[in-house]
């Protein structure tokens, strides 16, 4: 074994019946829980460094796509698609890091718990006294007469031995429990790490929801997006402001892409890791262009962002100008490219894919905050699409957890995987019930399998434009 540090393995047999035991084989020794929590920050940093590496790679893929404008040899298609496999491999880097960090977090909760440490501490404060008493008992047993012994202990040797055994038993059980718990936590961690298959993780998934595949064909369409957008509901934009923003977002309809499918359609990595069409409302480059355009505008730059600022930023200063303006990079970096670790941390709090929703929880107030965050994450998305997407993610989260969940507004979301009849590829997975009246408000119908809401690379490459848009 390659020792990662100077910590030496002090080989100590754990049970009192072994000869080398620290407690003279008389009292159980409890294993020290590993200092796993001290590895939490490094595990998170490892994930973030891989995410930052992935962002650097994304930047390369986007830049490569510029050959589209400058190279027209007979092998042009080959040039354009030559990054495709690497896009998935780059994503696997980050996902592999996320899985390692997740496995470590599980290890912390299982092997470095306060409960185990308490057992260790109880055992260690009890054992020396017990050993002393036991050794005295043995000495007395061999040196005293029966009368002397009973005079001192109040009962015979057999009874005293039984009492000492009885006192020791729970400590022995707990010591064994600690060793076993730590051993199992290590088994789990090891299996998780060995189970990370970077090849499998390199398989891209392509979103097939409309908001991910419909691409702006004109500046007017982008203007319509802005008019329909949930994000801009709270702001009063003049027609000329809308036109101005749309022009800077649309930029002639030439959108940076990372992946080109067989039909020459460009795709980019969406905020939650699945591929979306370059030029769709979910394209993070468009989001970035939008916020940067707003940060350049004399009026809009002073608007406040309706989400909590990253650490170290005064909420009062949390305007579009400070977040996305020149020289300030926390937010624009987080939404776009070249993320630093701080930006990443902030973004990971902002992102609300199904997995994030589970850890974030989606009750009442949190659900509201989730929506706000998504509004900022997808500022070009219409209220309707945002709502549908939110419900979809909620659904996926409920499917993954199988949980009955309060969704806010006095509604509860009951997982109903087996309770409600279903047909075809659509399955009723949940019912929404009014918490007060108990009435069923509605059924949620969706596909259980994520493969039905996304495509893999082969499927995308075979899709005609018509099929793509369903």
């Amino acid at each position, binding site marked *: 074994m390659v020792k990662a540090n100077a910590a030496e393995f002090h080989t100590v047999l754990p049970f009192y019946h072994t000869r080398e035991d620290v407690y003279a084989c008389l009292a159980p020794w409890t294993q020290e829980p590993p200092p796993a929590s001290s590895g939490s920050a490094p595990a998170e940093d490892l994930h973030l460094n891989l995410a930052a590496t992935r962002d650097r790679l994304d930047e390369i893929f986007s830049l490569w796509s510029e050959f589209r404008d400058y190279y*027209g040899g007979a092998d042009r298609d080959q040039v354009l698609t030559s990054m495709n496999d690497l896009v998935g491999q780059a994503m696997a880097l980050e996902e592999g890091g996320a899985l390692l960090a997740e496995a470590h977090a599980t290890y912390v909760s299982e092997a470095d718990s306060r409960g185990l440490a308490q057992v260790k501490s109880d055992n260690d404060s009890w054992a020396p006294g017990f050993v002393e008493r036991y050794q005295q008992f043995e000495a007395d047993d061999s040196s005293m007469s029966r009368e002397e012994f009973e005079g001192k202990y109040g009962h015979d040797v057999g009874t005293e031995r039984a009492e000492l055994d009885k006192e020791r038993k729970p400590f022995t059980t707990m010591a064994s429990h600690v060793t076993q718990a730590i051993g199992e936590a290590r088994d789990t961690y090891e299996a998780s790490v060995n189970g990370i298959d970077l090849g499998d993780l390199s398989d891209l998934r392509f979103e097939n929801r409309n908001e991910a595949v419909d691409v702006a064909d004109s500046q007017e369409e982008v203007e319509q997006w802005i008019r329909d957008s949930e994000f801009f509901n709270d702001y009063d934009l003049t027609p000329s402001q809308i036109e101005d923003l749309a022009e800077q977002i649309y930029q002639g309809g030439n959108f940076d892409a990372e992946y080109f499918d067989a039909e020459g359609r460009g795709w980019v990595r969406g905020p939650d890791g699945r591929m979306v069409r370059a030029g769709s409302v979910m394209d993070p480059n468009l989001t970035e262009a939008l916020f940067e355009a707003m940060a350049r505008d004399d009026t809009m730059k002073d608007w406040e962002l309706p989400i909590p600022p990253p650490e170290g930023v005064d909420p009062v200063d949390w305007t579009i100008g400070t977040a996305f303006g020149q020289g300030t990079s926390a937010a624009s970096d987080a939404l776009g490219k070249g993320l630093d670790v701080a930006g990443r941390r902030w973004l990971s709090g902002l992102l609300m894919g199904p997995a994030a929703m589970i850890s974030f929880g989606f009750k009442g107030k949190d659900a509201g905050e989730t929506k706000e965050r998504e509004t900022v994450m997808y500022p070009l998305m219409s209220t309707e699409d945002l709502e549908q997407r939110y419900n979809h993610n909620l659904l996926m989260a409920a499917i993954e957890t199988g949980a009955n969940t309060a969704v806010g507004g006095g509604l509860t979301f009951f997982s109903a995987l087996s309770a409600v009849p279903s047909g075809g590829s659509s399955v009723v997975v949940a019912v929404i019930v009014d918490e007060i009246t108990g009435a069923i408000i509605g059924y949620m119908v969706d596909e259980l399998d994520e493969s039905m809401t996304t495509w893999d690379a082969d499927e995308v490459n075979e899709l005609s434009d018509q099929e793509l848009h369903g």
Partner: protein
Amino acid sequence: MTTYWINLVECQRVVNDLDALLEDLRTDFDKVNGNAESIRESLCSAEESSQYEYKATQLDSAVDDFVTSDLTDHFNGIESALRAKVSAMQDVVNYYASGDAEMAHQAWGTTDQMPEYVYPGSGAAHNTTAGDGYVPGHPARGNTEHPTYVPGHPAQGLAGNDGGTGADGNLGDTYATQQPFVDAEAARD
């Protein structure tokens, strides 16, 4: 008639920019080993049960292997593939810039596979403004003596989103010299 085009200046600029990004590609990844060391320090206690010490050892190896072998190999694979592709693209630029394209073109005695040089400064797909007007041998289509310089190349066939060149795919099969982009990665597949 089929035409090919290349904007040498912009292609070279993109290749240079790619090289610059590749220079810094390892910056964040190089920190990962240090992170892994710290993670491994947290896996075991100073005092371990001899009964289960092997589990600590196995876990330590699993984390170590994943980072120093799996992740590192995976990353190195991506990096070397990128370097090969960027270098292949540099070869493409050199091929057109050196006049090899013209020579190949003349050797085959054909006219319709000649790349059209988008004249430096004329812009690309989105710039249909005429360049500085230097048009040797123009109109040169069919002219086997000179490469075709087309300042202010019109946008047909260049549009970024059309997904194709309008080129006749068969031509490339016939004349390998017209497909200078040699992707070592793809070739291995």
